[in-house]
Structures are given as structure tokens and as C-alpha cells.
């Protein structure tokens, strides 16, 4: 069989690239997934899920083997902690009920609650440029774009794409360059915007020049946007940078959640608009 010439071969491949990219972009614009992309995801997802499970199992077994002695002590400490937290939880439930009653008395609107859905991370960044993970909860479980994702340590990010067919969702991590959350320093209520920059830490910008921000301060969501509710932990201030030229302060924020070691997360679904 006669082989095509080099330029013709490369041009054909380039045309395939353009066609696939355009198809994908067009489908995304319509809020769906292009057929070739859907096929690729269908081929990838089952193996990713299996590999992630095997990896988690091996990691657990390795941890148990290495830390046999510590685990019993840690177990006892955790049991004590659970007992203390249960007491605290009871108290908080009492306060919540009281709060609801007071709101009803004042005829204030109820905050959007939603429900929590546990999910596992099935795949992480496929590239060095994006900071995203894929979780095994999607449209069938009621997950929608912009749902907030977090774990026990703090906010992880938000859902940006829901795959209707395979029951998975893509989560944009706090550290991704496209991520941004309205935030405030819990100690002083100084407000700013926490943005990702593709690194392991985030930047808190648009702080006032004279804002009282110190290293170690806890940063939480400000609740200014409709996506993230107020008071969720984002991280701690690692470094404060004063820029007198632009009369503003910025800070490096270390995310509270270990974004490079995610395995299980919570999704706050059906939390209203």
C-alpha cells in the first residue's frame, strides 16, 4: 500500500485535532459532552475507578503495616474525640433548632441547607496545568454544577461539570488558576478574594492596605457569593504581602484541606440557586 506524503499525513492529523477540539468545544458550549469525549471517558472511567480502589487499599494496608503500634493509641484518642464531638453536636443541634425558631419569629428567610453526599475521588489531575479531580457522584445522585465540595479539613472546591452518563463530576480545586472564592479573615472579618494560581497555595487578594491580617490567621468563606455559604474553612494565612503602590494587601493562603491527598469528599447538593 502506498504511503501518503509527510505533509499530507501531518495535515490530516492536524485536521483531526481541529475537528475533535471544535466538536468538544461546541458540545461544552451546549452543556453536554461530545460523543468522542464521551467514548473516551467511558473507556477510562472504569479502569480509573478500579485503579483508584486498588491504590487506596494498598495505601491503607501499607499504613497499617507501618503504623501498627500507633494505631491502637490513635484509635483510643479518636474514640475520646468522637465522644466529645457527639456532645458538641448535640449542643449545636439544640442551637440550630433555637435559631430556626428565632428566624421564624423574625420572619427571616431560611438559609439554603441542601444535603450532604459522600463521594470518592476516582481520578486526579491528568495534566500539570489544571488542578481538578473527578468524583464518583454525578447527575444520578443529584449533583449539579456549582455544588460545593469539602471534607473534614475545609473547602476543596466546586463542581464544574457533571457527567450525566457515567455518574461522575469534575471538581475545580481551590488551587486551580480558574478558582475564586469570596473570603474573610475570621479574626478580623477583613474581606478579600481567595484565588488559585496553579501552585499548592492560594492567593488572597483585594484586601485593604491596612487590613489586619497576620500569619496563621484562619480564612473562611465570606458568603458574598451564592455558591459558597458563609463560614466554611478555606485555610490559614502563610505570608502577608503589603503593596503600597496599589494600596492593597495580599496574602498567601495554605488550603486547610490536603488537596494532594484527597480520597473521600462531601458534596453539598441541592443547595438552592
Amino acid at each position: 500500500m502506498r504511503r501518503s506524503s509527510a505533509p499530507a499525513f501531518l495535515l490530516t492529523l492536524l485536521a483531526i485535532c481541529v475537528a475533535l477540539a471544535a466538536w468538544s468545544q461546541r458540545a461544552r458550549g451546549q452543556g453536554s459532552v461530545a460523543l468522542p469525549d464521551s467514548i473516551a471517558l467511558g473507556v477510562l472511567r472504569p479502569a480509573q475507578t478500579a485503579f483508584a480502589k486498588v491504590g487506596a487499599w494498598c495505601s491503607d494496608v501499607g499504613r497499617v503495616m507501618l503504623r501498627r503500634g500507633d494505631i491502637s493509641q490513635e484509635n483510643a484518642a479518636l474514640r475520646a474525640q468522637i465522644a466529645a464531638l457527639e456532645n458538641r453536636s448535640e449542643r449545636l443541634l439544640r442551637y440550630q433548632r433555637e435559631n430556626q425558631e428565632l428566624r421564624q419569629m423574625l420572619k427571616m428567610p431560611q438559609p439554603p441547607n441542601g444535603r450532604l453526599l459522600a463521594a470518592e475521588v476516582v481520578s486526579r489531575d491528568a495534566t500539570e496545568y489544571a488542578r481538578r479531580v473527578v468524583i464518583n457522584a454525578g447527575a444520578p445522585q443529584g449533583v449539579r454544577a456549582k455544588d460545593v465540595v469539602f471534607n473534614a479539613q475545609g473547602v476543596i472546591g466546586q463542581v464544574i461539570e457533571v457527567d450525566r452518563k457515567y455518574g461522575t463530576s469534575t471538581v475545580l480545586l481551590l488551587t486551580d488558576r480558574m478558582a475564586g472564592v469570596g473570603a474573610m479573615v475570621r479574626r478580623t472579618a477583613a474581606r478579600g478574594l481567595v484565588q488559585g494560581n496553579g501552585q499548592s497555595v492560594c492567593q488572597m487578594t483585594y484586601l485593604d492596605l491596612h487590613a489586619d491580617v497576620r500569619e496563621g490567621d484562619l480564612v473562611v468563606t465570606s458568603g458574598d457569593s451564592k455558591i459558597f455559604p458563609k463560614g466554611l474553612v478555606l485555610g490559614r494565612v502563610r505570608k502577608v504581602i503589603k503593596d503600597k503602590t496599589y494600596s492593597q494587601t495580599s496574602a498567601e493562603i495554605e488550603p486547610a484541606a490536603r488537596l494532594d491527598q484527597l480520597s473521600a469528599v462531601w458534596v453539598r447538593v441541592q443547595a438552592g440557586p
Partner: protein
Amino acid sequence: MRLFFLLYLALVVQTTWLANGLAWLGGARLDLPLVVVISSALLGGWRLGAMLGLAAGWFCGVAADYNLGSFMVSRMVVGAVSGAFDRRLSPDNPLLTPFCMAGGTVLAHLMFGLMSPADFAQPWPRLLGAIGLNTLAGCALHPLIARFAFPSLQQDMGQFVQAPHVSRRI
């Protein structure tokens, strides 16, 4: 078919077990699909390299849900260029594999940066770490990829050793 299975396996391993960067190398991490593309291109020529590069870029872009076109073109170019090197340099040259792995990694990042400058954030320590990791992994995996995906090439190499007059160029 074996090559595409290898690429598929590389991508699944990349997105699950090798997704975390090494903190002591500035967050650099191994790019296993790229290593497979370069290694296969060196063994199979530029046409195979370009096709495999396109497939790797497509899978990476779809899995990352991010800059599909830039990934496809950058990986395709790396595959084609790496494959073309087997005509310029002697395949017996021990420096060919590390040279192509390091060069291919730089070229992939360069192409991506040129096509998507707004999304390209790659500090020098991380870039250098990625080059080093890909080069080391490439050198280690190249013979295994040759054995697994190009068994006929291995046989031809064996015949060539016995009969030097037979061209080993396929």
C-alpha cells in the same frame, strides 16, 4: 493495538497512582503517557509517533477536561519530532533515549505554553524536575516498551547481530 493498550494503561496509572507531584522536586511529576509516546516514536518512526501523540493528547485533554486542542497538537508534534530523530541519529547511540526524553518534555511544555499561554504556569524547578523524571523513567521503560510493543523489532535486532549485512532499518 499493544501500543494503544500501553498508552491507555499509562494514562490510567498517571491519573490515579502518579497524580501527585514530588514536593522535594518543586511539585514535578512524571508524565507517563508522554514517555510512552516518545519511546514508541523512537522505536516505530515519526508516523506512529505522531498518531500516538495525537491519541495521548486527546486522552489527556479529555481526562483533564482542559485545553484539548493544545494537548493534542503539542503531543502530536513531540511524537513526530522524536520519531524523526531515529533517522538523524544512530539507534545504537546510548544518548538517543535520554536526549529525546528531555527534549520531548521541553518541546511538549513549550508547545503547550505557546498555544495556551494563559494556562501555562510552570515554575523552573518543577519544569526541570519533570524533565529529569521523564528522562529517567524513559531510559528505564524504553527497553520494556520495546520488548512489549515491538517484539518483531527485537527479533530483527537478534538476526542483525548474527548477520550484520541485514539492514535493521524497518
